[in-house]
């Protein structure tokens, strides 16, 4: 059942034909394209802020000894780098892509709940202003890791309530966004678009939205318990009062593990759109790809213990979590094989979206391999809380999620702006990023295996060489991202006019490619019939 655009045609003859002007357009935006744009601009800004923190971290770690900052400030940087990248860069970027593309892909005029959509977005600048302000209050920003383990996190200074409130706001934003996605997809698909015909990006977001609704409230519960332990003398996580710090870990990671799948499933969806286009061949095994995403999502709920193997876990639990974690490799592997089979006997060209998608395939897989190694419980006792873990999650998040986002942006940017962008600059951005992301993170595997713990501002001298290499990679990778901003800004301001199909010769499937570029401010005001 889809909501027909009949009510939209009634609106058509009022002043909504043209967007509002000035600040009102953005403050009161209800158009999914405007809200999507705001999310994307916001996330790019947060990416640079979180990235600047990473540059400072790598600068301190360039050499042994402390050169730039006190250890407590270093801990504030590592904590907030993660919070900003996860909640400010990766998640809002995917929401921005969802806002722009889901209505276009399913032939809907907008998201189902446009005003709630506006609220979901505008919570975020407030939440992050609050979060960043924590650096300025006595005691400084949170410094106990983004994982907020008590009792350490309860030693946070005056900024503690600001941190908790900011997290609550981010969570509310995500939950409302997820509700919007589900309601839109379930109710507003064009006639003839049954679920199995829906594009993979929309599918990946449908499943991600359910994950968000399931786990963001759990995070809210966990941080609220921290708040009451801190201010209201509860003892959820205080053994002296009958509580248990490890219980926090359970609650946090019950959120935290699905959270990392929330951060990767939309990227899987994007890759599943890009590879077929530039291989000029349909996605191999599309139905099985959908089942794989669903299995990964389901399995993500029963593996959280793998973050806690060294905390004194009973044998039965160690065995269970080892097996469930290893099991996730199966549907993930299926996806990698299907993507490869999509390229197999295709006809490949290597435009920037395709370059990022291919890099994703290789480098995300490397992150997957280190993940498999981490799943082997006894070996994990040597890897846990070392740079090996840092290398693993940065491989799946940076050349994984972030490259997925960049691939999506490079893929759909001409549809949004109406202009082809500077291919040379985009390719330069790609090559610099792809090379230096490896220089930055690959040596961290060695550091972890050689015995370097994580979250330390200074290290024993035998870790010097790889830290230096990693820092150089970090500076180069960070600087290269400026090219991304330049390409985007240039494309907004002008460039060769893009056709509806944008990627000539590839004949991409998907309703978005039936619209002119740029897509009209109000698109699919009448639902397309694709029966």
């Amino acid at each position, binding site marked *: 059942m889809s909501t027909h655009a009949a009510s939209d045609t009634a609106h058509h003859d009022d002043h909504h034909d043209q967007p509002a002007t000035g600040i009102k357009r953005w403050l009161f935006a209800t158009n999914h394209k405007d809200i999507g744009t705001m999310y994307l601009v916001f996330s790019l800004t947060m990416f640079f802020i979180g990235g600047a923190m990473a540059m400072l971290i790598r600068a301190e770690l360039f050499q042994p000894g402390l050169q730039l900052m006190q250890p407590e400030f270093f801990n504030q940087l590592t904590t907030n780098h993660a919070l900003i990248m996860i909640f400010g860069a990766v998640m809002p970027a995917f929401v921005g892509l969802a806002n722009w593309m889901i209505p276009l892909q399913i032939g809907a005029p907008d998201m189902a709940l446009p005003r709630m959509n506006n609220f979901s977005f505008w919570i975020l600048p407030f939440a992050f202003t609050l979060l960043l302000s924590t650096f300025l209050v006595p005691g400084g920003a949170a410094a106990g890791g983004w994982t907020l*383990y008590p009792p350490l996190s309860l030693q946070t200074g005056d900024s503690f309530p600001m941190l908790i409130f900011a997290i609550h706001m981010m969570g509310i934003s995500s939950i409302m966004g997820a509700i919007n996605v589900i309601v839109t997809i379930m109710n507003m698909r064009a006639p003839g678009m049954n679920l199995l015909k829906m594009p993979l990006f929309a599918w990946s977001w449908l499943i991600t939205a359910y994950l968000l609704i399931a786990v963001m409230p759990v995070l809210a519960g966990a941080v609220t318990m921290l708040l009451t332990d801190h201010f209201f003398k509860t003892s959820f996580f205080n*053994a002296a009062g009958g509580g248990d710090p490890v219980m926090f870990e359970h609650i946090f990671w019950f959120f935290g593990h699905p959270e990392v799948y929330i951060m990767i499933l939309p990227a899987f969806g994007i890759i599943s759109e890009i590879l077929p286009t530039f291989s000029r061949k349909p996605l191999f095994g599309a139905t099985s790809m959908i089942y794989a995403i669903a299995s990964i999502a389901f399995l993500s709920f029963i593996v959280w213990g793998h973050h806690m193997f060294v905390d004194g876990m009973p044998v039965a639990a160690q065995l269970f979590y080892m097996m469930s974690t290893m099991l996730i490799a199966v549907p993930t*592997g299926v996806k990698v094989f299907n993507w490869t089979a999509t390229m197999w006997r295709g006809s490949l060209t290597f435009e920037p979206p395709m370059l990022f998608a291919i890099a994703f395939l290789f480098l995300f897989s490397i992150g997957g391999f280190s993940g498999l190694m981490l799943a082997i419980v*006894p070996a994990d006792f040597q890897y846990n809380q070392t740079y090996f873990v840092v290398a693993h999650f940065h491989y799946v998040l940076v050349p994984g999620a972030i490259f997925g986002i960049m691939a999506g942006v490079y893929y759909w940017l001409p549809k949004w702006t109406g202009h082809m962008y500077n291919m040379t600059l985009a390719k330069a951005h790609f090559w610099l990023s792809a090379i230096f992301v490896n220089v930055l993170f690959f040596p961290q595997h060695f550091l972890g295996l050689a015995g370097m713990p994580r979250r330390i*501002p200074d290290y024993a001298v035998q870790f010097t060489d790889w830290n230096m290499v990693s820092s150089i990679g970090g500076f180069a990778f960070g600087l290269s991202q400026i090219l991304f901003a330049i390409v985007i800004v240039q494309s907004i301001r002008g460039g060769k006019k893009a056709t509806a199909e944008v990627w*000539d010769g590839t004949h991409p499937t998907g309703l978005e490619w039936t619209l002119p570029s740029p897509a009209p401010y109000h698109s699919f005001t009448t639902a397309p019939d694709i029966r």
Partner: protein
Amino acid sequence: MSVTRGDHDDSTSRALRRASATARALKGASATVLGLAALGFAATAGANTSNGYNLPVGVTSLSHDLYALHMEVYWVCVAIAVVVFGVMIYALVKFRHSQGAVPDTTLVHSTKVEIIWTIIPVVILVAMAIPAAKVILMMEDTRNSELSIRVTGYQWKWQYQYMDAGEGINFFSTLSRDSNFARQLHSGIDPKTVPDYLLNVDNPMVIPSGTKVRLLLTSQDVIHAWWVPDFGAKRSAVPGFVNELWFKVDSGKEGIYRGQCTSLCGRDHGFMPVVVDVRTPDDFKKWVEQQKAALKQAAAGGAPAQPPRSAQVLSTATN
């Protein structure tokens, strides 16, 4: 500006494209190549017997088992990577539009192949899980340990309280003073001039080789974690709870082994190392007698109670 560049016929640009396509094809393996090329880096062992880019084999049966499992999984991953990346690279080179490849748009689906590439990974995973499960069970067996030591994490030092034959021995183990001076912000001291920088303490834990040692870990404040890579021994120290772990250093592997706190515990998380002095059982007995004699003297009103010092460490620490 055209999007696909397959239209250009110029031989220079063809050669360039071939070169860049080859570069692209090899890019996928670049990370592994980087890893292998890193063999050129001379790795200096220091904290432990790691060669600088792999786990140490270590000096306990536990660490040997962990190393073996690690290498097994590693080689399985390498083998899978070679196959999968090989197929990807082949596809990237062979099926290029610029080389005239025509897409086979009928190749979209194969239930048979999906089943095969689901079953084979499951088989590989089961094969990896079985030896791992055996080691899990072995790690949990703390029965018949010959020496137990209570280890308490503090912000930011360790406390060791001996039980069994060492009952009564109790001392703190803190970052050595020379490291502590050098690590201060703008200290002006080059870390490379400090012996075992950040990995030296005033009073190491002393244990006998060839003996099953059991640690009972807890914390006085926040969550810490005790880790010596060469022992393969790591466990969290959780306030209000006691975690158990055991290891047995091989006879003949006496010496000093170093590790660090491995759970973020605040400002000086990076500055509370773990140092273990492994001695022969006879030397350990002598040490225990010395400590107990010193304790008796202190209790009898003699010299004020001092934490027992290890002679070996005294020579390097500037106390």
